[in-house]
């Protein structure tokens, strides 16, 4: 399927736009333009394909309908989904892409069989590769979506012998591929079985992984889909698929690595840790009631107004859920009006996606120079009068400093516990994403819990500070 000169050049242009778009995405100022540039590349590549392969009207109508439907579904979801559910929808979009790659591989294989089954070995290998990796990515993404939407499979689902099953499946896959390549019987059936096995593998790979590691897994599956796209491009002899797929495959791999570093979770631990330790799973709380010091908005306001000259805010996922970014910015301005020094400490994985807190606080017009990274602020807690933790939990959990099996062991945390006073605004004593209890809650001398929705709680405190001030 050698392409015409015009199409090849347009595909090359589209590929160049992807490259340029990704370049622009590396800096916050130009990132939106980069996304747009890549989208234009996609559009160009899509349109020129129709000129390369003319088709009768019916097919065109069918395509128009299907593309319209797909765009509508994708578009509506993308516009509607709340910011806090982004990860699962990125997973969903990734999954359908992987599914498409698998279907392309399967269809291509089917057509080759119809035409007599005579094909270059390398091409066949790439076809199997796109079926396998695409299918795996599809199923894995579905499971990731289900987990993150909390529809099922909460926590780490493991069963005895999982390792053996996975290894067995892999051997089966290889045996299948070899059989077909060696000219064995019923190749189409075998390809279908291969697809089914790929789906199963995807499920088994993702199901044992706990929610806290999901973003990394999604990033990995994203790279997988890129690889599958590149493989299907090799099979079809289509340059733009090869280039775009390879770009995503490689950059996705690096990105996964960078993200797992930022979260302090090596990839091998994420993928195989849970299976290896099947059964040990961290306890989500021991049922025993432990005493805490809790207060109302007025108590918190008093602490801030009279006992504290310097205050550090630590926002977390709960701030996003409660949409309390405006409320926290108001409190900041109120305290600053009283001459206090207010800073924000941003943990790299606070919230549910990297940059989550930066995005939210930018939205509320908190100046960027008030936001401090973990490394920059962690030494300052000891000299800080009061810390206000809003809807954050794991990122200040001292348990992370302990060696051992707990899910956040080794993750760098914000040293909130080094400050003189700690105020924690959340609705209950329930744990955060990692599902483990937080000893900071029970430090009755230092910590005051304000049990409230983040937004209401902060608004109450602001009001009370103003009244007292």
């Amino acid at each position, binding site marked *: *399927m050698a392409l015409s000169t015009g199409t090849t050049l347009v595909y090359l242009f589209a590929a160049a736009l992807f490259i340029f*778009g*990704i370049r622009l*995405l590396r800096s916050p100022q130009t*990132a*939106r333009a980069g*996304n*747009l540039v*890549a989208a234009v590349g*996609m559009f160009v590549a899509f349109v020129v394909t*129709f000129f390369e*392969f003319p*088709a009768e009207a019916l*097919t065109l109508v*069918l395509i128009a309908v*299907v*593309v319209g439907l797909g*765009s509508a579904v*994708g*578009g509506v979801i*993308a*516009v509607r989904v709340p910011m806090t559910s*982004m990860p699962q929808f*990125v997973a969903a*979009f*990734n999954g*359908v*892409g992987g599914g*498409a790659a698998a*279907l*392309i591989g399967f*269809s*291509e294989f*089917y*057509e080759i069989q119809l035409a007599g089954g005579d094909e*270059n070995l390398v091409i066949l290998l790439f076809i199997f590769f796109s079926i396998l990796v695409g299918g795996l990515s599809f199923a894995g993404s579905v499971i990731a979506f289900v987990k993150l939407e909390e529809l099922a499979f909460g926590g780490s689902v493991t069963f005895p012998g999982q390792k053996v099953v996975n290894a067995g499946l892999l051997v089966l896959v290889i045996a299948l591929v070899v059989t077909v390549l060696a000219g064995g019987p019923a190749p189409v059936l075998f390809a279908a079985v291969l697809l089914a096995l790929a789906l199963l593998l995807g499920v088994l790979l993702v199901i044992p992984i706990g929610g806290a590691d999901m973003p990394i897994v999604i990033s990995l599956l994203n790279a997988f*889909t*890129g690889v*599958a796209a590149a493989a299907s491009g*090799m099979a079809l002899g*289509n340059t*733009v*698929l090869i*280039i775009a797929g*390879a*770009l995503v495959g*490689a*950059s*996705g791999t*690096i*990105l996964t690595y*960078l*993200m797992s570093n930022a979260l302090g979770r090596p990839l091998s631990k994420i993928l195989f840790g849970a299976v290896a330790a099947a059964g040990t799973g961290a306890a989500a709380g021991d049922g025993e009631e432990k005493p805490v010091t809790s207060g109302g908005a007025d108590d918190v306001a008093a602490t801030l107004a009279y006992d504290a000259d310097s205050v550090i805010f630590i926002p977390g996922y709960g701030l996003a859920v409660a949409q309390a970014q405006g409320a926290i910015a108001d409190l900041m301005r109120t305290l600053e009006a009283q001459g206090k020094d207010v800073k924000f400490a941003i943990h790299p994985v606070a919230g549910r996606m*990297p*940059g*989550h807190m*930066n*995005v939210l606080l*930018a*939205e509320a017009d908190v100046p960027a120079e008030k936001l401090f990274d973990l490394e920059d602020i962690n030494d300052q807690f000891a000299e800080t009068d009061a810390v206000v933790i809003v809807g954050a939990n794991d990122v200040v959990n001292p348990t992370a400093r302990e060696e051992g099996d707990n899910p956040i062991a080794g993750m760098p945390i914000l040293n909130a516990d080094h400050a003189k006073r700690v105020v924690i605004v959340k609705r209950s004593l329930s744990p955060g994403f990692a599902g483990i209890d937080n000893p900071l809650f029970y430090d009755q001398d230092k910590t005051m819990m304000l049990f409230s929705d983040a937004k209401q709680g902060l608004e109450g405190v602001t009001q009370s500070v103003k009244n007292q001030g």
Partner: protein
Amino acid sequence: MAAEILSQLVVLVLAIALGFELISRVPTLLHTPLMSATNAIHGIVVVGALVIVLTAEDTLTKVLGLVAVFFGAVNVVGGFIVTNRMLEMFRGGSRRKRG
């Protein structure tokens, strides 16, 4: 044919190397948008799916191809819009107030 595959292989290798170089040191802040944008870019499978449909000899292939086109379209459109929404917020967020 072999020559064609070979030159495709060269392209593949170069594109992989380029992909690695492109994402060397990005700020943590941009990890999620980048993931989301590359997620949209692999929606390029929609073009492959299109090729399948446009060149299909058999009804089954055509139908599977159409399903793949649908999947690809969801991936592309959803991917780019979600990425854009994420990135919109970096500018101070006066445009859209949903978090």
